[in-house]
């Protein structure tokens, strides 16, 4: 009985100070959290690009994009598995082997995610567009498609996450402000930023990108000027899917237990938040929003405690939208630049 008594006082003690402001913790772990926040934020940013591109062109929030991402994570896992790796301790590989295997996984993940995005567009959205369905219907379909894709994995692989297969163990490469930065963090951040610039250049500098921007600004006029709208839409989904596939590989390098049927859901919502935060429809906004969200989540957890992780992310979103309703950088894909 005495234990029960102790418990109730403990509950009380907790409810007295249900938010703690651990400022010392925030300061002490600032740089560690910054480094980790940037790597998580880079993954958010890559996924956020997919949300932002599709929104820019179709004014559609593609909620099933989180499943496009998780299909890439499964593709990564199965590539590793197919190469003969099994769950257990991390294997030692020669550098060129490692790069080869990771590149193969990158190609597989990008291909699977890209294909998933295209099929999704073909099956879930195009028929509605042909019939001129109102915008709300697309939104419901997106959520429905998300569940269908999720449950397909559930039926196939069950509820347990795939057992971790890891090819590269994180090793510190250099120190910055007393915090060691690992090879995995460097890979993720550098590759994500490079991929972002590739995507940004593609949309802003190439002929295909011009088509995307034209359809985003004024679909009817773009069609009149000879832009094939359907092809542009497919291309947009494909780019978003390829980037999500790359993000999935990076995510699996960071968190080898990541291939779970519901594993994309929360990450997708966070990436969507990042897209809105930076200004949805704006590629640079997605990058900024992703990195910012990754950082703030970590700082927030240090300051308020781990259970506030998700609250911090969404509170930040609300706060920024109150002052900048179109996000930090505003919508740009749909705005003509003169």
């Amino acid at each position, binding site marked *: 009985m005495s234990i029960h008594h102790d418990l109730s006082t403990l509950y009380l003690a907790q409810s007295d100070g249900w938010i703690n402001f651990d400022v010392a*913790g925030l300061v002490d772990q600032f740089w560690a959290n910054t480094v*980790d926040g940037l790597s998580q934020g880079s993954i958010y940013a890559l996924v956020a690009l997919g949300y932002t591109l599709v929104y820019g062109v179709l004014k559609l929030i593609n909620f099933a994009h989180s499943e496009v991402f998780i299909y890439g994570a499964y593709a990564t896992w199965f590539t590793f598995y197919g190469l003969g790796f099994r769950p*257990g*301790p991390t294997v030692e590989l020669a550098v060129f082997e490692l790069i080869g295997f990771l*590149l193969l996984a990158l190609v597989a993940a990008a291909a699977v995610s890209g294909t998933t995005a295209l099929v999704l567009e073909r099956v879930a959205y195009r028929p509605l567009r042909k019939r001129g369905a109102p915008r709300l219907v697309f939104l419901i379909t997106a959520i429905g498609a998300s569940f269908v894709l999720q449950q397909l994995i559930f039926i196939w692989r069950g*509820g347990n996450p795939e057992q971790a297969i890891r090819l590269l163990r994180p090793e510190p490469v250099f120190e910055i402000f007393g915090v060691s930065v690992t090879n995995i963090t460097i*890979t993720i951040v550098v590759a994500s930023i490079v991929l972002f610039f590739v995507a940004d250049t*593609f949309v802003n500098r190439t002929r295909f990108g011009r088509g995307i921007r034209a359809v985003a600004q004024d679909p009817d006029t773009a069609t009149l000027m000879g832009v094939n709208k359907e092809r542009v839409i497919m291309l947009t989904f494909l780019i978003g899917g390829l980037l999500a596939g790359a993000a999935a590989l990076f995510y699996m390098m960071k968190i080898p237990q990541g291939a779970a049927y519901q*594993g994309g859901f929360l990450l997708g919502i966070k990436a969507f938040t990042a897209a809105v935060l930076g200004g949805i429809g704006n590629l640079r906004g997605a990058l900024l929003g992703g990195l910012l969200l990754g950082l703030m989540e970590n700082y927030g957890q240090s300051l308020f405690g781990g259970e506030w*992780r998700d609250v911090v992310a969404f509170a930040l979103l609300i706060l920024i939208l109150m002052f900048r309703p179109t996000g930090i950088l505003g919508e740009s894909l749909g705005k003509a630049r003169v």
Partner: protein
Amino acid sequence: MSRNRFGRALVLAATASLVLGACSARTDDSGSEQPSQPPQDSAPAQAANAADPAGDGNATCDAGTKLAYAGTINGQNAALGQNILNGVKVAIKRHNDNNANCQVELQEFETEGQPDRAPGIVTQMVNTQEIIGVVGLPFSGESKAAGNIFNEAGLVQLTPSATNPGLSENGWTTFFRGLGNDNSQGPAAAEFITGDLGAQTVCVVRDDSEYGIGLANSITSSLADKATCQQEVKTRQTDFSAVVNSIKGANVDAIFYAGYYQEASPFAQQLSDAGVEAQFVGPDGVKDDEFVKGAGDAAEGVYFTCPCVPADQFTEFTNAYKAESNGRDPGTYSPEGYDLATILLKGIDSGAQDRAALLDFVKGYEGQGLTKNFKWDDKGELAASTVWTYKVESGKIVRNTEIKPD
């Protein structure tokens, strides 16, 4: 043309970044010395008078009599549920093989282990009149959400693994717990961590489940001032970097994780990757092969506490279990699931044909099982309970010691 250039640039960029990451120096982490190990306790032998579902072989009952299992089968933390379900199946098969005139059917209900799904599933179950007894609701959260539905329907519910202490305080007359609750696991774990492992500072990390919160409170109050740090994580969280950084800053001897294996696997791995050398200790919700596979390099040397009895000496049960589960060894709570199903089968064999009779039988039951002696008090708690510790050795979970309460 531009498409080609785009593709090439993508491959180049990825290659460059991978090279950069992979070329880093490999430093072998020097194996940290573990504190000296207490000798392994021997697993309990099977009691000669352990209840046997086969009975005398002459039982008769109505055709269509059903028992049910409810809990996670493929959902969240599925392995924990499958361990129990297979244990139940072993008991039912043994009963039916030996009693030609009493064929009991087992119906399975999938709750996915989620508190918001369980009430609907349980309602469906209580409305199936042929079901007169249930082994189930393995998790505390779902048990809390659905316990009242069993109570109102008068359907007896034997839980093989829900350990939140508060569950027996709701006045439910149909709730029976087949193991000690977390008011025994918490103090036992505290005793093990500070005694056997010799930790002076412990970080208690909990998830946001009913089970995690209850267990964390129990061990924190037992550790008293040795619980120098407390952290919270979320169900389905995968990136634990902020919590890991905080624990690194707290510089503790041991970490106790109150939660389930799905989050514990990446968490343990990220702790180990960050160079945290504190001893990782998990409870029954983490003690599964899925954790060992999921945590990769970090699993070796992890300890578990569990109010479950090692099945090593239950040879007959182990063989039957392997036949039922494609060769897998019994897991956490498999023998408990078997024991509880056996009690319900005994009830049916003794002539209980409806829910009220079976409930009465369980209330008055007293007998030895594989794992322990079963006799419940008014609240549905057992008098005797045992807590064991386990350890990961060479990629397998092996028994360690039995924690004897003071």
